[in-house]
């Protein structure tokens, strides 16, 4: 009796910790994601936790732990896909707006994410390296953004979800004065707008 009481207490503590982790990851997620995308299963567990007792006994600690890990993993994967979507830039050659084969590979990932997240609208930023002159580079950056936009529209993404802007050479990611830096700066970058 004493032992099972301790077990019960430990179970409760684990449950509480699990609950806290879920809530914290949930709130983190909410701040970044569309509320439409939230998982219904998470709220069920929290509700059970609040009621105490009954529901808990239908799950073993291992099952709870597994579920918690699984959910965390799902959140992590989704978050990672989102991070990749935002972080993976599409790169271009000097004074070039054509999409290379590696640019197309990156863009296929973008298409996949946009399909999985039909509520998301994105801004495509076109950028250039510091070489060349500003006026032409703003036009060139716009053309890079347009190249990317055209690819996405051809892949079936609605044009209404895509907007574009050019910053020319004004927003480099690498301030170096060499080909490696220039290569990183000649890019189309994605921003999620909602």
């Amino acid at each position, binding site marked *: 009796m004493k032992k099972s009481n301790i077990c019960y207490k430990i179970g409760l503590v684990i449950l509480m910790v699990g609950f806290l982790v879920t809530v914290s990851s949930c709130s983190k997620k909410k701040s970044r994601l569309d509320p439409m995308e939230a998982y219904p299963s998470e709220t069920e567990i929290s509700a059970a936790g609040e009621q105490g007792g009954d529901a808990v006994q239908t799950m073993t600690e291992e099952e709870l732990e597994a579920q918690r890990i699984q959910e965390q993993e799902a959140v992590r994967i989704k978050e990672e896909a989102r991070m990749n979507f935002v972080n993976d830039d599409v790169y271009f050659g000097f*004074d070039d707006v054509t999409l290379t084969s590696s640019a197309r590979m990156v863009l296929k990932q973008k298409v996949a994410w946009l399909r999985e997240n039909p509520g998301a609208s994105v801004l495509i930023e076109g950028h250039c390296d510091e*070489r*060349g*002159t*500003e*006026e*032409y580079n*703003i*036009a*060139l950056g*716009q*053309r890079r953004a*347009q190249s990317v936009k055209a690819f996405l529209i051809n892949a079936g993404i609605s044009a209404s979800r895509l907007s*574009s*802007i*050019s*910053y020319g050479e*004004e927003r480099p990611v690498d301030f170096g004065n060499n080909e490696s830096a220039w290569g990183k700066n000649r890019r189309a970058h994605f921003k999620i707008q909602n």
Partner: protein
Amino acid sequence: MSQFMKMKLSNIHFLVAYVLLISLFLSPQCCFADYDYIKISDPFLNKIPVAVPVFKSLSEESAGKEIPVTASDLVKEFLAFTGYFKMIDREAFLEDLQVKGITGPKINFDNWRDIGAELLITGGVTIKGDQLQIEFRLFDTFKSELLFGKRYKGRLDDQRKIVLRFCSEMVYRLTGKRGVFESMIAFVSTATGNKEVFTCEFDGYDVKQATQSKSLTLFPAWSPDGSSIAYTSYKNDKPEIFIKHLRDRTEKRISFDGINITPVWMSGKKQMGATLSFEGDEEIYLLTESGKIDKRLTKNWGIDVSPTFSPDDKMMAFVSNRFGSPQIFIQNLDTGAVRRLTYEGKYNTQPEWSPAGDRIVYSGMEKGQINIFVINTDGGDIKQLTRDAGSNESPSWSPDGSLIVFSSTRTGKSRIFVMTASGTDQRALLTLSGEQTDPAWSPSFKEY
């Protein structure tokens, strides 16, 4: 008088040119570079030696005691700025006009000819209360005669304006051209942390912030009357064109879908050219003053950007990548016929048509370095004006066509520089914190 002076000066030029020609033949290995970037008859190479002794104080007032020195120094500074004159060091002077006097009969012109001065400027300063009067005399030392004299009255703090009036008159009489001293320069500076448009006088004096966009602001362009500056700003999170009236502080916005950049006025009509991309392609359009589209000027898939109009508004030069890399093209605005202007190099941009209409200044990139070039509108006589001195961009003509303002990274950060139209006398215009780019020289403000 001016006719006479021009004749006289051309005689001087002939003489100097002759001497130079001889020295060229004597040392054949020294010259004949890739481009003949300085002509032998170039007035900026054959500077006229001028002596400007400290002005004479003609009153006993204690206020403004420094003005005889400062005003004569300003004369030297302004005249040197034009590139036409060489200032003779006062240490070399043989005659003290403070003692002898500033009028013709009191001057021994032998003493000025002997130190190489072809022109002599004397001045007298009279101060009464807060009233300032300066009289100037310009002498031809070889003819020992007064070319012209002027007396200007103003307040004590009008010293700069008075000296500018005299210098403007003098340069006009010697060259037949006017405008540099009555002009301003707009540029972009990062001094506030954002790129904003600033203005200053022709020589970098009196810097003022013209825009408060608190965001990326680029490409200032003056209206033909100098009352407004058009520019591109990202203040609404996309590149849009704004026209700011400098005195009224009012502002108009031109915004279509996509980019709205590189505004530039026609010189006669109240119309602007600009690059817009709302049709999915960067094309140049003619806009009314209120920002409505009058017509589309370019019709070619590819980037068309950076329009500049000939002084008679009949032609437009612009940048296009229709043949691959960016090159400068000229379009006849009546017929629509387009011809390619630049063939040298793979990257030629930022054209600006000269006030006289015969030349186009632009920036060209070779081996990763951007330099300033000028070319005839028929494609001939290309001259490279900058070399081996960082990146040199955004050239803009002074209203009389004698000088070119541009940005350069030759000293590290990008700064505004000025040179003569033949590339001589390259110097920094001003020193400000941050980086300065995109200079645009204003038209002449006729009244001072």
